[in-house]
Structure formats: C-alpha cells, structure tokens
C-alpha cells in the first residue's frame, strides 16, 4: 500500500456517483421535505396538531432530540477519546464518525425549536443583549442545553473541519471537475508545510483533549434536562453516566448502521475491515452492559427509596399502559446485545447490521419511555390515564430528521473523503509495505 494508492482509493469515492447513490439522496431529501412540510403545518396551525395529552407535555420531539444527541456521541468518542488512547484502529472509521457527530448534533439542535410553542421566538433562549434588558435564566437546564449543544456543535464541526483541511487540499490537487474551486476555497489554501503541520498536530491533540470532557458533559447536561426536574422517573443522580453510556451505545450502533452500507458502496473494504467492526461491537457490548446495569439500578433505587411516587412510576413503567414500549426497549438494549459475547456474531457484518438497527430502535424507545411514562404517571393521580398518541405530524417530523441526517451524510461522503486520507497515509507512511487493513 502506497501513499498514492491511498490517495487515489479514497479520492475515488468522490467520483460521480452511481444511480444507487442518487436514489438514496432522493429518498433522504423526500423524507426531509416531508418533515419540513409537517413542521410548517404545525407552526402555522398550532402545536396541538401533535399528539400531546396533558400532562404529557414532552413527547416525540424531545425523544428525537435526545436520540440524535446520543447518536452524536460515539463520533466524538471514536475521533477524540480513542485518539487520546492511541487506538490506531479508529483511523478507518474516525472521519465518518465525526461527520455523523456533526450532522446528528445539527439535527438534534433543530428539535428544541420544533418542540417549543413559539418557534419563531427560539432566539430568546440565546443570551444576547436586547433593549428589553432581559437575559436568560442560567439556572434552567434548557439554557445549559443551549450552551452545551452550541459548544458541542461548534467544537465537533471545527474538529471535523480541521481533520478535513489537508484532505480537502488533497482533493483540490486531484479532482479536476467543477468542485475544484470549492475545494480550493474550503482547503483554506492548505499547503502542508511543516509549520502548518506542527500547529495542526498540536491543535488536533487539543481538540481531542477538549472534546473528551465535552462529550461527557453534553450528554450529562442533556440528562439533567430530566434529572434536574423533580419528576419521579427523571429525578435521578445516575442519569448523567447512564445517559452518556446510552448515548455512546446508540452512537456505536449508528456508526455500524452507516458504515456497513458505505463500505460496500464505496468499496472501502481494504480500509474498513471486519476487525474494525469487531472492535465497535466490543465497545457496543460494553456500553450495553452499562446501560443494562443502569436500568436495574433505577428500579432498585425506586424500590429502595421507599417513595410512593418513585415506586409508582417505575411500576407503571413496566406494567402500566406503556409496558410494551418498556419491554421492547429492554429487549433491544440489554437482551439482544448479549449475543455480542460470541465472536461469530461480532464478526458477522449482517448480524451486526441487524443488531445495530435494533439497538437504534431500542435506544429511541428508551428516551420515549423515560419521557412519556414518567410524565404520564406523576404525583397527582387525578392527571393519570391519558395515553399519548403521536400524530402523523410527529411521525413526519421524525422521519424528516432522518431525512435531514442522511441527506447531509450522503452529500458529505460523496464530496469529502469519508476516510481520513492524512491519517491513513500517516499510518502507513513509514513503512510502505503496511496494508491499510492492518491498521488495527
């Protein structure tokens, strides 16, 4: 494997796409349009077109929000945390994961806006000087969210971009079609000079070092949206680690979901190997075990607290109106991943792909269950009994969010190197005989 071969192989993925790709983009864009239309309908008509039922005032949108933030997490884990741990195998999957992070956070960031009653005033959540002399309430976890999500989006976007800069420069120097001026612009005039590389490496390290606590803080903050409230089922000290583990778990599943077809589509088999998938699967198994442990702890604490409110809520969660969701969540997130103890499962891409889909569903359900069941069964029994039935609007907006994510992701991987050229070259640079598949 030579540097030139790596360069060619990876930049080849930017070649004019196949019909399959166009079909995929069309599908994603259609989904996005559907979601957009549904949102416009909702904003014009009133939030009542969604299925909220008092006292369940948060529903699918917040579920989607937490889900997408969660998806974002494994990207940072792979790109930053594993970088700090010098896990070389991350090289192959880091770029795709980083991109996933950015797009997932961007998608997630829209949900609070979709969710609020007056989306046209969403900017009131941002502390900007205004003539009303009003600031925001920094005690509100939602403001923490604003800060955490903004920071996360900014930092991960910069992180992604920093890594991309030399690769875009490579594309600039290789691609000759109409995109060239764009690459030229986006490469910032990257030279690859020694000085630049020196600062680049330093900053990359710092980004990794900053992103690692950030990623933990972001999902902790998201979990505090719930944990800082007094609602039984939400008010829990274990939420932060529990959510972080869950987020990474769901994110890893999404990485697998994305990489399996991408690897096939772009013929990246030499770069992204079964071994990489097995590593991802091992991480998934570990996080699944943490999540399962968190579930059990929650129930134990509820029982041990002696609080009728906590006990009532958790009993209702498993045996109340929403029992189906809870058990399905438990199966997808805890029972099924136990299969990963077997190497045959870990190394079968088909099995992993199917499992990753189940985990995605399960993790989505986890947020749904936490939000909806806790709200439906709170302190005052006079409010109980309503069943939250989401409407087509919420479904369409959720589908639209997937549309947005996949649109962005598909456009990204066709226009930017989906595997880091620089890092691949770096890995084989010293010994041209190294095969990329050996970077593990």
């Amino acid at each position, binding site marked *: 494997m030579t*540097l030139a071969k790596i*360069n060619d192989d990876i930049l080849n993925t930017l070649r004019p796409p196949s019909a399959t790709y166009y079909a995929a983009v069309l599908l994603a864009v259609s989904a996005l349009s559907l979601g957009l239309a549904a949102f416009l309908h909702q904003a014009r008509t009133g939030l009542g077109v969604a299925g909220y039922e008092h006292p369940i005032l948060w529903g699918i949108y917040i579920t989607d929000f937490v889900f997408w933030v969660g998806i974002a997490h494994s990207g940072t884990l792979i790109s930053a945390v594993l970088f700090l741990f010098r896990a070389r195998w991350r090289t192959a999957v880091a770029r795709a994961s980083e991109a996933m992070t950015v797009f997932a956070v961007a998608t997630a960031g829209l949900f609070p806006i979709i969710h609020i009653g007056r989306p046209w005033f969403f900017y009131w959540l941002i502390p900007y000087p205004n003539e009303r002399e*009003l600031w925001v309430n*920094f*005690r509100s976890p939602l*403001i923490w969210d604003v800060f955490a999500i903004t920071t996360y989006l900014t930092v991960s976007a910069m992180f992604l971009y920093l890594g991309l800069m030399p690769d875009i420069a490579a594309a600039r120097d290789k691609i000759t079609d109409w995109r060239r001026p764009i690459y030229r612009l986006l490469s910032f005039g990257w030279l690859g*000079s020694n000085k630049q590389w020196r600062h680049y490496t330093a900053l990359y390290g710092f980004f990794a070092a900053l992103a690692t606590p950030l990623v933990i803080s972001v999902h902790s903050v998201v979990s505090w949206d719930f944990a800082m409230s007094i609602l039984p089922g939400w008010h829990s000290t274990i939420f932060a680690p529990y959510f972080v583990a869950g987020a990474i778990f769901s994110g890893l599943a999404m990485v697998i979901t994305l990489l399996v077809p991408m690897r096939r589509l772009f013929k990246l088999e030499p770069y992204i190997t079964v071994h990489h998938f097995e590593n991802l699967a091992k991480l998934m198994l570990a996080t699944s075990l943490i999540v399962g442990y968190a579930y059990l702890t929650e129930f134990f604490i509820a029982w041990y607290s002696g609080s009728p409110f906590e006990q009532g809520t958790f009993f209702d969660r498993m045996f109340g109106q929403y029992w189906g969701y809870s058990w399905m969540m438990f199966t997808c997130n805890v029972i099924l991943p136990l299969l990963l103890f077997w190497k045959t499962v870990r190394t079968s891409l088909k099995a992993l792909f199917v499992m990753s889909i189940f985990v995605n569903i399960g993790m989505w359900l986890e947020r749904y269950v936490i939000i909806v069941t806790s709200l439906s069964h709170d302190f005052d029994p006079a409010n109980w009994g309503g069943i939250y039935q989401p409407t087509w609007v919420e479904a369409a907006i959720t589908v639209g969010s997937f549309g947005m994510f996949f649109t962005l992701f598909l456009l990204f991987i066709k226009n930017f190197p989906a595997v880091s050229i620089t890092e691949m070259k770096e890995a084989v640079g010293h010994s041209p005989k190294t095969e990329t598949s050996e970077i593990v």
Partner: protein
Amino acid sequence: MTQPVVELLGVFPCCASAASAVRSIRNEQLGELVVYSPTPDHGLDTALDAPVSSVRLFVLIGGLLGCATGFAFPIYTVLEWPLITGGKALISIPPFVVIAFELTILLGALGGMAGFLWLSKLPRITGESAPDKRFTNDMTGITVTCSPEQIESVRTCFERTGASEIRELP
C-alpha cells in the same frame, strides 16, 4: 538593496530522505527551509528542530477567558435584573459551573482554532499554493530559499539525500 534570492525545490518520495536533506541543509546553513508533506511527520520535526507549537497558549487563554466569562456573565445578568426563581439564591454557583465549563471548552477550542489559523497563516484564499500538487498526495517537498551562490550546494544536498526531482522555482 535586497540580495537576489533563488528558490530551489526538491521532491522526495519518502519522508525519511527528506528529513536527512533537511538535516544537511540546516547543518550547512544553506538557506531558509520550507518542508511540504502529505502527512505530519515526526522525523521532519526533529530534523527541523521545530519549537513546540504555541497553539496551546491560545487554547489556554481562550479556556481561561471562557471560564471567567462563564461565571461573570450569569452573575452579571442576575444582578442586573434580579428575578427569584424557585426560591434559589440569585448567585447560584452550581448551575453557573455548567455554563462556565461549556464556555471554557468553547472558547478554548475557538481560541485554539484562531491560534492555529493565525500561526499557520491561514486561510490563504489568494496567494501562492504549494509548489507541487504531489505534496498533498505522496511526495514530500523541500524548498530552500538561498542566495544564487548557494544553489549548487543545495542541489547537491538534495541529490545526495535521494530527491526524485530537483527544480528551481521561478
């Protein structure tokens, strides 16, 4: 009066040979060096005896600024228009820690990015590009800016260390 200078480019197929070229040019003090490579390379850094990047200073300043802002800004706003919520103290430090933390990271990262761009003289939307396109592909290049008298020594040095191509830049 500026002295007339010439610029000589050596293209190296591998970093190690480029590194030895760098070493010898530096030893012979033949001129100012710029090395272009497709990847960062530790060997080149050593050969160049490059100082530690001062990006870290930017990150530190950004981070400290962020942390300070993260506490000062919420405290300013609650004092500016005191509104009691939930019976909490106006200056309630624990929630502000979250803000301070996030701003530390955010401004630290932004500071680092700004420092990186500043130090790397990026973006360079106009102006010259690298002397050879292959430097983003698989080749390492060294340009030496020297006086016309030294050009031959440089060329020799390039040849000795295994340059695949040597040319004078206009």
